[in-house]
């Protein structure tokens, strides 16, 4: 392998990327856009959810309870309606996420010392929102109930004790439960899949399609030199993008960075080799741009998005799918990223992810080289 020839191929490839304005956009702007997209667009922290109220009692007590809903950050009473139909209509057309119905005998029951029930009709189309909503509503109603009981005990000459237990929750690693701190580190894996596999497979499949690859092969450049020359520029671009994304995460979204920068570089380099090899391999076997890029998205981007733990918790998937995630490099990379950014785990805990990642990089690079050489002979 000659360094000069490798350099010549690499230079040609770099010029080609820089000259094509659209490729330039994808390598420079796409990472920024992806980070901003997920940083801003993904927020599962629910506040000010619109609720409708149907107060059939209209008493001091029912108003007290509703005031507690209003005072909570999580709810916003947008309308008070006078019929059950208006309430159901609002939930049907999505104007209300929840409707609260206070029965006509609410205050009567409290005075009589009987349990009173408040109804919460929840739009559970989105199960996650509904779940959080129900939790908050439970807390409000329970708080009211226990205050009612304390007042009642006092009025009846009993010692009224405060609430018996409180939960003191400490959230580790992501203290404010910030959605962007949870999402943004994983975006690095998406960026690299796009740059490494999607873009690379497209450009190389294009050379096959147009026949320029054969031209290149007929020159004295050896297959290995071609492959390295083609891939190294994308490797460099990918690494620069990782650093840019990390900087945006830290400075713009204030995601913590608790691990070592070196680990970030090392694991990113490994993952970059994985996706580049995949992209190259697919372009060799597909030979046509549409097929190559689609396969690249299907085998790298989609797993990185869905099955890596980037967004959806692996532990919550069906067991068979959990096994499958074991053979996906993206899973290990995302795990490393979360450890570096949020957990600051010591090196010993990182090996469990770094070792498989390195093995994948090695095996896939071999596979790509082998398939390319076989293709030529």
């Amino acid at each position: 392998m000659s360094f000069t020839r490798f350099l010549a191929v690499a230079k040609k490839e770099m010029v080609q990327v820089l000259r094509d304005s659209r490729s330039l956009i994808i390598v420079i702007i796409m990472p920024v856009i992806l980070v901003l997209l997920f940083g801003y667009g993904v927020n599962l922290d629910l506040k000010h959810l619109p609720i409708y109220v149907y107060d059939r009692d209209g008493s001091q007590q029912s108003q007290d309870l509703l005031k507690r809903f209003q005072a909570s950050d999580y709810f916003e009473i947008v309308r008070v309606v006078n019929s059950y139909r208006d309430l159901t209509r609002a939930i049907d057309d999505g104007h209300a996420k929840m409707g609260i119905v206070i029965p006509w005998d609410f205050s009567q029951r409290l005075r009589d010392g009987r349990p009173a029930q408040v109804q919460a009709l929840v739009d559970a189309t989105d199960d996650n929102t509904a779940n959080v909503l129900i939790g908050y509503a439970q807390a409000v109603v329970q708080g009211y109930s226990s205050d009612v009981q304390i007042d009642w005990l006092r009025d009846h000459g009993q010692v009224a004790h405060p609430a018996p237990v409180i939960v003191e929750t400490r959230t580790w690693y992501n203290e404010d439960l910030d959605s962007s701190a949870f999402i943004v580190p994983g975006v690095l894996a998406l960026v690299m899949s796009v740059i490494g596999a999607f873009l690379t497979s497209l450009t190389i499949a294009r050379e096959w399609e147009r026949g320029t690859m054969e031209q290149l092969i007929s020159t004295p450049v050896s297959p290995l030199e071609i492959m390295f020359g083609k891939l190294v520029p994308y490797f460099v671009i990918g690494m620069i993008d990782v650093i840019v994304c990390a900087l945006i995460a830290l400075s713009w979204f204030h995601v913590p960075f608790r691990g070592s920068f070196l680990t970030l570089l090392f694991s990113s380099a490994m993952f970059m080799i994985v996706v580049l090899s995949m992209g190259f391999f697919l372009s060799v076997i597909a030979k046509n741009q549409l097929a190559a890029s689609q396969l690249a998205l299907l085998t790298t981007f989609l797993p990185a998005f869905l099955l890596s733990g980037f967004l959806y918790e692996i532990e919550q998937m069906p067991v068979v799918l959990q096994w499958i995630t074991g053979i996906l490099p993206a899973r290990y990379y995302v795990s490393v990223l979360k450890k570096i950014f949020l957990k600051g785990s010591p090196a010993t805990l990182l090996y469990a992810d770094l070792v498989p990642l390195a093995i994948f990089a090695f095996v896939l690079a071999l596979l790509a080289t082998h398939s390319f050489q076989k293709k030529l002979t």
Partner: protein
Amino acid sequence: MLTRLKQMLIKEFIQVFRDKRARFLLFVTPIIQMLIFGYAATFEVHNVATVVLDLDHSQESRDVISRFTSSPYFDVQHQLTDSRQIEDLIDRGKATVALQINPGFAENLRKGQTAPLQVIVDATNSNTALIASGYINQIAIGFAKDYQQDRINRISPQLTERIPSVELEQRPWYNPDLRSRWFFVPGIVGTLTLVLVVQLTAFAVVREREIGTLEQIMVTPIRSGEFILGKTLPFFLIGLFDVSLIAVVGTLWFQVPFRGQVSVLFTGAILFLLCMLGVGLLISTVSATQQQAMVTAFFFLMPAVTFSGFAFPISTMPQWLQDLTYANPLRYFLVVLRGSYLKGVGMDILWPQMLAMAGLGAALLVTAVLRFRKAID
């Protein structure tokens, strides 16, 4: 005119179906993606890995722990003996929740003071942490309620029968078991349709241009209107077929209920497809090569899916982003899909969405056709 259009359609269909990879792309990948998405995409939280450290060893502390053990949301894996173990297990990711009951818990309770429950949650995934905290609070509320009841019972049993209380009766509509799958599957139908149709339309025209057959067609007597119709109609039909295919597979395989009218869903699908054809054509007018078309399509797809309400509620996004989502056809189609599947609502509720898609579709198609004619002339 009809004969020319017919010839054009025949040619297009032959072109699409001749290619084995294209057939695979059109009919197999959507199903694969539907299955992976349907299984992987979940925000549900069950069997959270939990460890317990009981330093009180009382009747009361055991009562609290047994409530965790019997909850489907928590999987109590270890009873620890030392608080240092907690840090280790959470660092290594072996436990997501740690519950610690300090000495004096029962004594505090008996003295009528508030007894704290120490909870540590790994918030790397902020959503899981949020949902799990909600479940923990509900368990604590349940324990507190029962304890309070017992206490009053001990003081004077006849009081228990007269003490008022308020309870929340929750009714999650449309998705009573709060299943993530019911939320995601209808959304996947829309998302996959979008990805497929935009890419195909953008690609088809650009491919003809890149390999030079576009000029050949232009010298035939075919008019540009007929050409556009001939190019888009096949994808419209394929898109419609794919919507049905994905919808049927999703419904049957994942057992998601379909409560609305098929006609409403199809009206929505047709309007949505018109929008996507417009987008695809527009992309083809600004792209000279297949690579550019692919990259531009990707640039459209990512934000369109992220800012549609597919996975993340629009209401939690910054206001300026929420305003932008009104220009996103997928936003409306998702409301139609979920409305038809889960809510079972009809045109009387969904007409604003239909109107919005019709307006967007008309605007997109007119712009695309005008630009396209200019590009040909």
